[in-house]
């Protein structure tokens, strides 16, 4: 009975559809324009750029924070530390508001794409339509999971229910990752369409899976996953810094000081892996198309890497600064504080080498004195050998800062503690020597061999970091404490370092987004669909920097609003005191 009714409905609908097809209306051909009208004032490109970038920043936030939340909740469960559980919940609450901001920006982005670039959108949607439906559907699951995760927090608080709750957090990450992977397929297709797709290929003829899993899809997926975790951590740290500066009681200050520390630890710790993912992505780009790779590294984008070097230098300095100030609040930290000036010297010299340009900007007399744009002496610092060496030593130094931080208030009790520490020192010294050796030796071998050296350097650094931290875990087993860390006794200026970190991370994301998108140059879809607007040329860095700054400011304003709203939903429960939570 029911079946027949459905058949009726389907029949009527189908008939209407046929009618529409053959009716005079359907017969009129309407060919959509390739481009919509140029966006007023700033132009279509800047409009879509800003919206896409801010959408992406929010997306990174709502994907990065669940990772953060699940990890901290797990620490809370298995480490039996209530503080982590509360931290996790506090962030999930912010997620609720951030989530709708992401969706709103996503909607805006979609509408701009449809109205400003209709031909591109219809091309992409023809290829990817199924994945677009799935994409939208995933949001239902993701929001449902998020609501259950947050609102079920206090209900499923203990025992097996708590584990189930944690499972919800994992599920939230699964949805988020799926969403990320799908969206990445679209944008990587624009960058690296499969080589058998030519301008003459009708979009319907493009094989879905080859377009979806294209050459740069996986590298971008991994790169973005890692970067999202970094980004989430740094935002958490900045949020904590704000709350710290605004805190009225010592307990509040202690809680947010600690939260800032955890956020920063995750951000910087995960950040150290990011270059590898970037290296893989770069290699895939070279492999996909040599010309695209050269445009990125040696062509007109080469100056972008000087700006990137500057930003990364700022990251290193700010992160270490925060750690060094933090030593002041750890009993026993003063033992290490006299070493910081030497570590700082390494960082500053590293930064100087890292940011020394190969071709220098100089006036006429200076050029004449140098005999060209390459300085006869400093010119050697402009090469990759020197830069890789500098950055590896900076990574080691930052790692050493963390190590000092870890050990500051502990007294090892194992009998071989001294030997262990000397071994650690030896490992670090050997690693630095190896890195330096390859850096210097790189000047005496051909380029091809030299490129291989950077891999050795990185592997050595990674191995050393893992070995030293592994050793440290054993040395510090059952270590005695010199006294608890005095959370909250942190000078205010340290918190501003956290702000510098978050701004730098956000800006860096914008810059790398420009690099990724800009290497397509005048193509919407590389070598398949050309950009024929007046904005086809990839803009110069100065203009790009201004747009990126606008994106960062818009994002920070919006996220500040999100935090403000989040603060209104529920104020209490944040302060880690063992007493029942006071009503606000």
């Amino acid at each position, binding site marked *: 009975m029911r079946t027949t009714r459905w058949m009726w409905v389907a029949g009527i609908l189908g008939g209407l559809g046929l009618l529409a097809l053959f009716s005079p209306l359907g017969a009129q051909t309407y060919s959509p324009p390739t481009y919509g009208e140029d966006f007023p004032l700033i132009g279509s490109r800047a409009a879509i750029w800003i919206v896409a970038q801010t959408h992406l920043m929010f997306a990174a936030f709502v994907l990065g924070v669940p990772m953060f939340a699940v990890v901290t909740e797990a620490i809370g469960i298995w480490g039996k530390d209530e503080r982590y559980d509360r931290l996790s919940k506090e962030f999930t609450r912010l997620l609720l508001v951030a989530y709708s901001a992401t969706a709103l920006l996503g909607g805006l982005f979609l509408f701009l794409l449809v109205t400003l670039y209709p031909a591109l959108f219809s091309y992409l949607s023809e290829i990817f339509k199924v994945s677009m439906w799935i994409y939208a559907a995933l949001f239902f699951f993701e929001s449902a999971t998020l609501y259950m995760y947050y609102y079920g927090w206090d209900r499923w608080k203990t025992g097996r229910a708590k584990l189930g709750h944690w499972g919800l957090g994992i599920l939230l990450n699964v949805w988020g990752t799926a969403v990320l992977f799908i969206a990445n397929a679209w944008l990587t297709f624009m960058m690296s369409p499969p080589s*058998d797709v*030519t*301008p003459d290929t009708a979009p319907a003829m493009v094989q879905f899976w080859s377009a979806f899993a294209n050459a740069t899809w996986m590298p971008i997926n991994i790169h973005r996953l890692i970067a999202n975790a970094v980004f989430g951590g740094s935002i958490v740290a900045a949020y904590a810094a*704000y709350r710290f*500066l*605004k805190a009225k009681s010592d307990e509040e200050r202690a809680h947010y000081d600690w939260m800032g520390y955890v956020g920063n630890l995750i951000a910087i710790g995960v950040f150290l892996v990011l270059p590898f993912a970037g290296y893989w992505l770069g290699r895939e780009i070279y492999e996909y*198309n*040599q*010309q695209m790779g*050269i*445009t990125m590294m*040696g*062509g*007109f984008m080469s*100056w972008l890497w*000087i*700006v990137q070097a*500057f*930003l990364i230098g*700022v990251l290193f300095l700010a992160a270490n600064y925060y750690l060094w100030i933090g030593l002041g609040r750890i009993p026993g930290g003063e033992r290490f504080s006299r070493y910081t000036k030497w570590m700082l010297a390494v960082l500053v010299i590293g930064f100087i080498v890292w940011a020394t340009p190969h071709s220098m*900007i100089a006036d006429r007399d200076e050029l004449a004195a140098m005999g060209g744009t390459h300085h006869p002496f400093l010119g050697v610092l402009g090469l990759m050998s020197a830069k890789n060496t500098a950055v590896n030593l900076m990574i080691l130094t930052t790692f050493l800062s963390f190590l000092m931080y870890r050990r500051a208030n502990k007294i090892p009790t194992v009998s071989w503690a001294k030997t262990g520490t000397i071994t650690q020192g030896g490992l670090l010294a050997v690693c630095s020597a190896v890195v330096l050796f390859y850096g210097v030796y790189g000047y005496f071998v*051909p*380029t091809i061999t030299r490129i291989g050296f950077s891999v050795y350097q990185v592997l050595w650094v990674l191995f050393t970091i893992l070995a030293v931290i592994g050793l440290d875990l054993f040395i510090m087993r059952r270590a005695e404490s010199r006294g608890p860390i005095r959370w909250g006794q942190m000078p205010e200026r340290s918190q*501003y370092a956290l*702000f*510098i970190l978050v*701004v*730098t991370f956000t*800006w860096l994301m914008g810059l790398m987004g420009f690099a990724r998108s*800009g290497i397509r*140059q*005048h193509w919407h879809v590389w*070598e398949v669909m050309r950009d024929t607007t007046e904005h*086809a*040329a*990839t*803009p*110069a*860095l*100065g*203009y*790009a*920097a*201004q747009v*990126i*700054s606008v994106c*960062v*400011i818009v994002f*920070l304003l919006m996220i500040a609003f999100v935090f403000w709203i989040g603060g209104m939903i529920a104020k209490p429960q944040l302060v880690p005191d063992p007493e029942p939570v006071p009503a606000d």
Partner: protein
Amino acid sequence: MSSVDLKIIAVVLATIGAFTLVANVIPQVESDVPPDIAFGADVSPEELVEVGEQLYQGAGGCLACHAESPGARGPNIITDYRGQGPIGVRCADRVPGLDCKEYLYQALVRPGDHVVDDYPLIMPPTDRTLTQPQIWAIVAYLQSLGGEVTVTGADIPDEDEAEVETDPALASTDPVELIQVHCLRCHVYEGEGIDIGRPLDDIGAHRSADELRRAILDPPSVVAEGYEDVVGLMPLDFGRQLNAEQLEALVAYLSTRR
């Protein structure tokens, strides 16, 4: 707004401002978009050379590999290659039977056909990024480097014609001719051709007509024993290069080779 808020705003804006400033003091370069050009029949060699040079150094992307510096990714064609002079001097002698103009055009459109020894095949076919007039302008520029420019307006097809204008052999349905045009670049047949893929002399004894058809249209689906290493080398677009009549003629012919 409290002083803390103001301080935070100041720190954030100062950081953003510093980054923007750094990005603005370095040299500002915008990417080049290849100009859309159309030449009349009476275009002068000088005009062609000028446009070609711009493309060579800019949007064509040639200079990225074919640079003067030692250790460049591609052979140096603009100043001197191993003492033989720039490309204009030696283009006529590169491939027997091809004059300078034809050689250069082929090398640009099908780089794989004439790779210079010792260099890997990394060059993309230029007709994917450039229009026919642009390619011919580059040919003219390359000729001008030590040679005489012989490209004229008559060489340059209209964009639409370029698609149609093909080697007469490509339109043939004679299987032997098809093999010569399409297959010998990678397969040996009757003692001719290059030994990369499986020889075709006895292919009919090992493959049915169905398998052959599949192997041509979707090469990875049929792998010859001993040639697993070269899976993926065979172009995937023979379904577009051949029409149905040609494909069937080729399949029928090959399946009788025993």
